[in-house]
């Protein structure tokens, strides 16, 4: 998650950045962060919230949405200062978090060792496959980020307005879609 989010931000943060290479030791991937402390903190918080949600809803498909928007005053007048958000780009990250399966009880230590060894092999191969998958996802982000660029607003001195939407505990079986629907209705 961190790889993906930071890579997107790195492509869409057009202000002066201090690129920072970060090694994701788990998958042997090096991704780039913008080197902005506030952004890193925000991403970490959102990831922690997402992990908490995943722990409560194991083995469920989920989606994380990273949106970039502009804020405009809606019907500005003296008595109201409503602003509306105009999303100019949204990234949907579909996830299916699978909990690691527990191994059955064994009455012999040797069997346990064998099972443990097999589990390690499976884990490492699964991890390698996941690493390749993440690498492909990052290349996809590169392609998407470069295909369409005209819609990006003018470069400013700060990061574009954005929000990271994760499934919340109050979501129904439809996940975060209800939240998005509510927002669309309000806009």
């Amino acid at each position, binding site marked *: 998650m961190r790889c993906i989010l930071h890579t997107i931000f790195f*492509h869409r943060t057009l202000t002066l950045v201090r*690129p920072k290479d970060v090694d994701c030791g788990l998958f042997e991937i090096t991704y780039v962060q913008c080197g902005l402390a506030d952004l890193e903190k925000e991403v970490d918080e959102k990831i922690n919230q997402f992990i908490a949600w995943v722990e409560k809803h194991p083995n469920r498909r989920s989606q994380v949405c990273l949106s970039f928007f502009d804020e405009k005053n809606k019907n500005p007048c003296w008595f109201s200062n409503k602003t509306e958000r105009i999303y100019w780009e949204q990234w949907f990250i579909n996830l299916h978090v699978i909990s690691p399966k527990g191994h059955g009880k064994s009455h012999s230590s040797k069997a346990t060792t064998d099972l443990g060894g097999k589990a390690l092999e499976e884990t490492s191969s699964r991890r390698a496959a996941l690493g390749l998958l993440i690498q492909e996802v990052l290349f996809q982000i*590169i392609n998407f980020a470069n295909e369409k660029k005209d819609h990006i607003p003018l470069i400013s001195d700060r990061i574009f307005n954005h929000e990271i939407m994760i499934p919340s505990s109050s979501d129904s079986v439809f996940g975060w879609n209800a939240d998005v629907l509510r927002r669309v209705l309000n806009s």
Partner: protein
Amino acid sequence: MATLSDSAGGGGSGRAGAELMVPQFLLKALHAILAVRVPRPLAAGTSAASFRRRDRWFHLPLHAPPPPAAAEQLPEPSATEPLVVDIYLTPSGGAGAEEVVERWTVSCEPWSAGARAAAGAGEGLAVNRAYKRCITMLRSVYTALRLLPAYRVFRLLCASGQSYNYEIGFRVGSFAAPFTRAEESAMRTRRFAPVETQLGRLVVSVQYLPSLAAFNLEICSLAPAMIITDYVGSPAAEPMRAFPASLTEAAGSAFPPPSRRPNSWASPVPWPHAPVQQAKFSPPLPLYASPTPSPPTFAGGYLQSRLSGETAPMIIPTTSSGRGPVHHRNMSDPIRGFMLPPPSPKNMRGEAGLHETPTDTRKAEVLRMADLYANLPAAPKIKDSRDESGRFSGVFSSSGSPRLGFSRSSSRLSMQDDTDDADFPFAVDDVDTPDSRPGSSGGKDVGDQASSSSHKSQDAAVGYLVHLLRSARPLRDASNSPHTSRAESLEAGATSSFMSRRTSDAFEELESFKEIRENLLARSRSRMQDSLDKSVRHS
């Protein structure tokens, strides 16, 4: 660059901006590629508090890691020519052909005539928009550089202290030899979405090998060999404990490994018979190797050769007047109070009763013994470069007549001398060549000119140990004699440089030398008795 990003742009100013921007884009791309493809020791925690002006191009400072210094020497790319960067792997040592693992191509494809006209009109080709797109493209290039397999190789080769069986290199030019069909088929290609500028379309693509496992990168050696000059115990690290170059070269032994603290208690080394050497010494020999000047051990044979009369000369600080007024010199004798090693048995036989004299003349006897010993036949001398400065440099000539060599300025035998002498912890290592040794002073002839070579080496060892013992802490009570006060102060000064020696080892050696001394004393006594008898008969 804020002007490029914020201005409306277009028309003539747009083209000027593009002419400025495109070469900078090519340069930035080149630096970004080389920064993570040219292995070099990467400084940890590079500070990027302030960027140079040109680092701000495209809002992407290349600081972690920065481009290599070689990149600064490359000519600035031209907007009209493509930039081709080949990254290749080649076996270390040049024993093999290069193989290109990655090829980056960055170019500005000029517009056709019709398109150029449209671009010139400024339809939708604002510089700021192009600049914004360039920023995004460079971010993509920056990210992709870290996802490609060559980045892993770069990181491996950058690891400090390791060299691999392959080296990574690069070639920059505007043209590169096309790949063969086989190479082309083995490579994958990624193209980044082009950016349209008023000069043309900026295109970036990369061809790369999807896997570098075939190269089988292995560590072929650890850290490159480097000379450690300040290892523990080295002359550079501990100037007081250095060895003279002459000693080691004369000994002809291999230097001990720098990582192992040399021990002077290591296996003995035959006393050198080589001529005097003047060269600096580093690192020390096993025999004298300990920078903490502990007395060396000597094999029996070695000692035997020393006692044969052909002594290896040991430089004892001498006065210019030679050995005549030994007694007077004793007052300033820095070795007063030291337990001198016994001279060669052959040489010292005639001097009876030296050890029986009263305490107040004991120093004179001791000095005389050293004198006698000093004149035993010597092995070639190793001259200490600091010999004349007044260090403990005992010269044991091979003339057979004992000569007490003291420093010409014995008062300089002080702690300061020890400190200053960066390569001379064991003065005994200095020996005179047979030719260079001073002649005997006549007088007491206690040396046996015809001693065998075994006496030489023994005498050399004894003389060497004499000097060591001199500089050791006095074994006797300090209240022995008022005459000893000055010498003892000098001793203390000299001893401090050898404090780390083990006194137990010194005691053991002292015992052995005592025995030798007794033998020599007996011999000298008998000789003196003979000579007295002769003189009486003649008279």
